[in-house]
Each structure stands twice: as structure tokens, then as C-alpha cells.
């Protein structure tokens, strides 16, 4: 039995509800992951610091309000500054195709568009973490 995947799920931005993020968090838990849920209105600084303290393998950010470019870029930056650039950052929410391409170029590992089915997300994360662990084991 391998150890559970550790993932942080955060809801960024000022808009008021986190139903989507909670559904995803519960789905990841049901898929056998240890999900650290941090709740609403998280700043990039809070997200990065929590990711460091929790030593997660993946950070998942749900973002509905605009400003994705700055938000995701800032989280990536902060993680790198903290020496935690190895942590994979993924996201979901209402993000345009252009922004998705731009963000993935800047280092966001994966963005899931609106309406992505949970099993697709789970599957992607499991495979990506497996690959990351295999890579780390080689070192």
C-alpha cells in the first residue's frame, strides 16, 4: 500500500462561495487522498505558506473571479522563493483558453476548465504524483 497523496485545496479570490472547491476536496478524499482544505479568500501568500507547512505534493487552487494570471504566477513565485518549487500547482475555475495556455507556460502543471468531471481530475493528479514520486526516488 502506498502512502496517500497529500494535496492542498484552496479557494482564492474575494467572491463568496466555495461549493465547487469543497466538492472537489471531498472527491479527492474519496479517491483516497489526504486533502488539506483551507477555505475561502486565500491570498497567494497564505496558500504558499500553508503548502510549505503541510508539505503537500500538489496545490489545487479554485479561482472564479478574474486575476488568475497574477494569482497563479504569484503562488508559483512564492513557492520557489520558499524552496518549495517542486510542489505541483494545478487549478480550476472559469479561465479562458488563452489564460490556460499562458499559465501552463509559466509553470502551472494543469488547469481544469469549468465542468471537468471529478474522475478526470483524480486520474490526472494520481498519474502526475506517481510520475513525480518515481522521479524523486531516482535522485
Amino acid at each position, binding site marked *: *500500500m502506498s*502512502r*496517500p497523496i*497529500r494535496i492542498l485545496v484552496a479557494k482564492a479570490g474575494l467572491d463568496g462561495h466555495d461549493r465547487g472547491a469543497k466538492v472537489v*476536496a*471531498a472527491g*479527492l*478524499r*474519496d*479517491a*483516497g*487522498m*489526504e*486533502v*488539506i*482544505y*483551507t*477555505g475561502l479568500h486565500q*491570498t497567494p*501568500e*497564505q496558500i*504558499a*505558506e*500553508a503548502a*510549505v*507547512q*503541510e*508539505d503537500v505534493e500538489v496545490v489545487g487552487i479554485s479561482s472564479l473571479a478574474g486575476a488568475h494570471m497574477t494569482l497563479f504566477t504569484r503562488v508559483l513565485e512564492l513557492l520557489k522563493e*520558499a*524552496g*518549495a518549487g517542486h510542489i505541483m500547482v494545478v487549478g480550476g475555475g472559469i479561465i479562458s483558453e488563452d489564460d490556460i495556455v499562458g499559465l501552463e507556460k509559466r509553470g502551472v502543471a494543469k488547469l481544469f476548465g469549468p465542468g471537468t468531471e471529478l474522475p478526470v481530475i483524480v486520474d490526472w493528479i494520481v498519474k502526475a504524483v506517481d510520475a513525480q514520486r518515481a522521479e524523486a526516488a531516482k535522485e
Partner: protein
Amino acid sequence: MTYDLAEKLVNGDRLALAKAITLVENRAHGHEDILEECFRNRKPAVRIGLTGAPGSGKSTLVNAMIKLLRAEGKTIGVVAVDPTSPFTGGALLGDRVRITTSESDEGVFIRSMASRGAVGGIAEATDDVAVLFEASGKEYVLIETVGVGQAEVDVAASADTTVLVLTPEAGDSVQTLKAGLMEVADVFAINKSDRPGAERMALDIRSMLEMRASEKGWTPPIICMSAIRGEKVDELIDEIAKHREHLASCTSAADRERTYLVVKLKRAVERMLKNDLWRGPDGSALEKIADDIADGTTTPYAAARQILDRYRARSGQGE
């Protein structure tokens, strides 16, 4: 590498502390060396356990306590334990939702932890995470339990002072308290006292405590407080301090430390034995034995004795 990690965390490196906690939690290769090194470098912290039903406000209280303790300049490590699903192995660790520290405050370190099958309210490795916090210089270690264990009593052995968080809400009456919980409480916190019924509940608890001889020479104080409003949280912290003074007056710090370390020692031995036992050939023989039990060739009891005999023989100490 692992030695490096211990040295770094002792010197205040947060990333190293986070990584060390993961290794210890996973009981990964090298974790014993880290613990060893950290144990040598630790300064015992004030260890406070917070237990009580889910939703009683433990995390909110942790948040309020952090605010007050930080104002006094104390450094704090928090371990918040949530239950692992026995079916999927997954866990939703949501305590951070209530704990809002400043991300730039290096004096606080919060770690969520899944119970991973342990039933005593804390995870098997929670205790050792406290050691890592102590080695990293934390003066206070707050341990928030799962709240739904069969008996949330393990935390009492890991903490100096155990706070039982109750709420005046319907159904949370004193009569329905899980057996053993009353005894475990050094301090009663009746949270959500901004709602009606708190005084009533305090009376109930007091009369229940009076029926019980206070064999430890300590009558647990009852504080009606509100974590969310930050009311009487200072009083709670004062009572925790008084409890520590009481402990100091009846036993020496050295004696208490000794008791704590014996518990630690036993837990470590049991863990290592268990790992060792199932790692050997006995682990793989389990399937065969399960078949034998299933078809009635043997019983679980006879098989257990057999496994133990073989284990002893294997480790060259057959009786």
C-alpha cells in the same frame, strides 16, 4: 540527508521541519535518526491537548489561543488531527479553515494530520511530531484531536494539560459524555457561551465532579467561554497555567517528564515490534493462515500463538 534535515529544523528552517514531519508521519526510512537527533535537541514545550466533539469549536479555540500566546511572544506548533476514512484511506483535513494566522509570522507552525487508523483521537505519530516542534524551538504545542474516536484519551498521555471542549447545545448533556472523557479533562471549556445554556451546563459538570473524589488534588476548573468572540480565552490560558503549577507542586518536572517518556518509549517499542513482526515472513504467511482459519483447520487464537512462537524463534529468543 536525514541528519541534515534534523540540523536544519533545529536551526529554524521551516521547510526542513515540514519535510521531517512527513518522514516521521510516514515512518519513512531515516525517520528514527531524525527523531533521535531532534530528541537530543529538544526543550520540552508546554503541551496542551484539546479534545471534544466535532464542531465544538476546537479549531476556533486554537485560533484564539494562538492570538493571545503570540501577543505574549510565545512560539507555537499546532498539530490538528482529523479522521481517515477506513474505507478509502482518504481524509479531509479542514482545521485550517478556522485558523487564520499571518502567513509572515514565523512563530507559528500548523500541521494537519490524518488519523490513519488510530482510534485514540490522535494519529500514531502525533506524539513524535510534538518532539519535532520542540526541537524546532516551539514553546507551546497544541494538539487538536479528531473528536470522534472511541475514547479520546490518548492525548492525555501526550499532553501536560488536556482541555475538554463542550458546548451548551442540546444533546451535549453531561450524562451523554463518552466514558473516560470526564476523567481525562484537566480543564473544562464550555465553548459557545454566547448561546444559552452554558451556566446550566457548568452547574451539571460541577455537581458531577463533586461526586468524584479529586484523587489528584486538582479540581478541574470550568470556564464558560466563546472562542469565536475571543471571550474568556485568557482565563482558559490562565487555568492551564495554574494546572501546570499544580503539577509542579505535586510532582517534579523531572518525574512528569519521566512518565511522559515511558509512554513514549512503550509506544515506540510497540510500533517497532509491530513493523518488525509483519515485515518478516510472517507478513506473507498471513494469506495462507487466513485460508486455514477460514476452512476451519485452525483458529485465530492458535494461529496467533503460532505466529508469535515463530517470531520469537526467528529473533533467536524462543522460550
